[in-house]
């Protein structure tokens, strides 16, 4: 694989293999029936007035539209509020009722939420789970909205497409995972960004001597440590192995996985101790207070930093190379966005709202209010980005392959009931890697068989 030269190419790499497969088959069929397709296109053009009437209304919409939001952190909550206010202001007949639910609870209760009385539109992620809900008929088709959206690449459209070839997701923002640090700390102490695992270890030793905790770490909620596993796995075994491991196609008892845990065990002495009692916010604050040297997390770590000078002081580097044959150009950058419920109460307004949520105008409001994310829409105003956001854009553009995140790339029952306890067990007792990987494999077989 070569490096992507632009954002569209980067996004093309986000498409899961299952979808690319569908795409190829569709292309083959398309080649046979290309005349028919052209005909259908002509027909659609003739009847475009009726499609807009049932799809996304062009005129004013009225009534109340409800939006379920998992953006419960103060910063992102305010960002959502600002966007919805702007939408309601533009469409004076409409009110948007935001139903904010704690981020973790929202994710945990998503099945019940969708089968009960979900809001007209709701926040969700690209990846395995989005396609699963579409497949189970729990989400509404938003293909009409995509005809209205400009500034999103084909690749993003594909990352919003379910297995049936229709779109069920409007992408809004994404954020990269990397190792964050404060420029001022690195400058004061004369630290260099590590390029290899050895350099990271040496840097860690130096930080310890200087009285710093080398790597901030918190895993009380169970998911942050998945990020460390993913980074190590991407560096040791590469992107393709990550994808097939998450899809359940590889054995967890494989020596390759054991090597990931083994390497991690070697790094634990330079991690903040007692991680299992600490939330990621507490860990991030130790970085913010200059008690820790670096922190491996998503760029939402910036939410724990004050606006302005403190944000500008925050910088990051990619997880260093471990195996020269694998390199260090695979990263994780999960996409967040919006979905629509099956048959929403106010379909016209819901469609119009989704189209707005995908537009550059709404993205400008969000990325300004929450500088820890970057917009998926190319039309978003990059001039207003903080230096961290600009660097994030560059970072994902220069990456060779991009994963989502463990709990978005694999089955949620496996991620939450097997991997969270397993990783926590590892952090408690990093010695019994063999027993651990065998236990994961036995549970994986049972879960993936159902």
């Amino acid at each position, binding site marked *: 694989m070569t490096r992507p030269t632009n954002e569209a190419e980067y996004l093309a790499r986000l498409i899961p293999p299952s979808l690319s497969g569908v795409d190829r088959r569709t292309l083959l069929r398309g080649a046979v029936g290309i005349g028919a397709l052209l005909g259908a296109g002509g027909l659609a053009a003739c009847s475009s007035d009726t499609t807009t009437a049932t799809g996304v209304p062009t005129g004013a919409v009225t009534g109340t539209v409800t939006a379920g939001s998992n953006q419960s952190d103060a910063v992102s909550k305010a960002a959502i509020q600002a966007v919805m206010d702007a939408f309601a202001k533009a469409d004076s007949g409409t009110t948007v009722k935001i139903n904010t639910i704690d981020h973790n609870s929202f*994710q945990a*209760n*998503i099945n019940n939420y969708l089968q009960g009385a979900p809001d007209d539109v709701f926040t969700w992620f690209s990846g395995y789970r989005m396609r699963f809900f579409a497949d189970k008929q729990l989400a509404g088709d938003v293909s009409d909205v995509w005809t209205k959206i400009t500034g999103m690449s084909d690749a993003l459209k594909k990352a919003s497409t379910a297995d049936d070839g229709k779109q069920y997701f409007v992408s809004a923002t994404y954020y990269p995972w990397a190792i964050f640090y404060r420029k001022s700390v690195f400058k004061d102490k004369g630290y260099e960004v590590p390029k290899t695992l050895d350099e990271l270890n040496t840097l860690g030793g130096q930080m310890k001597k200087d009285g710093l905790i080398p790597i901030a770490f918190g895993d*009380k909620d169970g998911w942050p440590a998945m990020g460390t596993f993913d980074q190590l796995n991407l560096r040791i075994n590469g992107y393709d192995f990550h994808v097939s491991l998450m899809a359940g196609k590889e054995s967890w008892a494989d020596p390759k996985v054991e090597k990931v845990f083994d390497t991690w065990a070697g790094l634990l002495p330079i991690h903040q101790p*007692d991680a*299992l*009692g600490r939330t990621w916010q507490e860990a991030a604050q130790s970085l913010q207070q200059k008690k820790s040297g670096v922190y491996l997390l998503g760029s939402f770590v910036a939410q724990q930093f004050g606006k302005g000078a403190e944000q500008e002081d925050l910088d990051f580097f990619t997880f260093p190379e471990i195996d020269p044959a694998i390199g260090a150009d695979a990263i994780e950058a999960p996409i967040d966005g919006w979905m629509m419920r099956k048959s929403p109460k106010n379909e016209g307004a819901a469609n119009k709202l989704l189209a707005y949520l995908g537009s550059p105008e709404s993205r400008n409001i969000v990325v300004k209010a929450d500088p820890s994310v970057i917009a998926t829409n190319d039309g978003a105003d990059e001039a207003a980005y903080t230096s961290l956001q600009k660097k994030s854009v560059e970072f994902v553009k220069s990456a060779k392959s991009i994963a989502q995140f463990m709990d978005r790339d694999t089955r949620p029952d496996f991620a*939450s009931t097997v991997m969270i306890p*397993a990783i926590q067990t590892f952090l408690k007792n990093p010695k019994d890697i063999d027993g651990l990987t065998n236990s994961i494999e*036995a549970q994986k077989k049972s879960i993936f068989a159902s």
Partner: protein
Amino acid sequence: MARKYKGIDQLSTRDKIVVGLMVVVPTALVLWLVWVPAIGSVLLSFTNWDGIGPLSGIKSVGFQNYVDIATIYPPFWPAIQHNLIWLGVMFLIATPLGMFFAILIDKGVRGTRFYQTSIYLPVVLSLALVGFIWQLIYSRDQGLLNAITGGSTDWYGDPSVNLWAVLVAATWRHSGYIMLLYLAGLKGVDPSLREAAKVDGATDRQTFFRVIFPVMRPINLIVLVVTFIESLRAFDLVWVINRGRNGLELISTLVTQNVVGEASRIGFGSALATIMLAISSVLVVGYLRIVMKED
């Protein structure tokens, strides 16, 4: 002079309807709210349903869930162990402590009302608040306990201490509850019994253990049952703290993790719930036997 009761024919139509409703409505409620869900869980425990789609799409997997739980599900045996420890601590420490508070308050120490309110307060506080209070105390980096002692014990994160840390919090709540129950019982004891004991020259200790305690038998039974039930369904505190992981596994949290969460392993979770049901049944049957014998 009341006539001799000659059977149901003697009742007027209205009485018959009333009696009929009095029987049918509670029966229907019990069937619908207790037995249907209970039997439903047992049946679901033999399937691998993911909670989505119609009931007709459910496939049976036999005893696979139970085999998996006992053999390859690492949190299960620790959960059983933790539930037993929980039961032991509540039974041996929290409940006696609550009873002791009740006796002290009943004796009328100065500021009774203040103590009564402050001991009972934890029971009234909302769960979110309780979780928050203890987070403030136990947090490793920012907590009160480590700030005072200057230590760096990871009260919530270290699996060898977190269960005990939580048990302190649970005792804090449970003893208040028991205190109130027991205090109500103590207030109901005939004061002449105490006077008679005093006249006979019994010490305070003797009066309590030889006279009051035996008289309070019904309350003692209730306290015992409450302790058992509260220990088995222990859930809320642990869930607020870390979702019942990492040393705080309890059967109830495992059920919730599997059934309620995004995981949605309804079949597997139901099998765990069925195991919990079986354990509780043993205790409930034991209790019923004692109560029935008494009548």
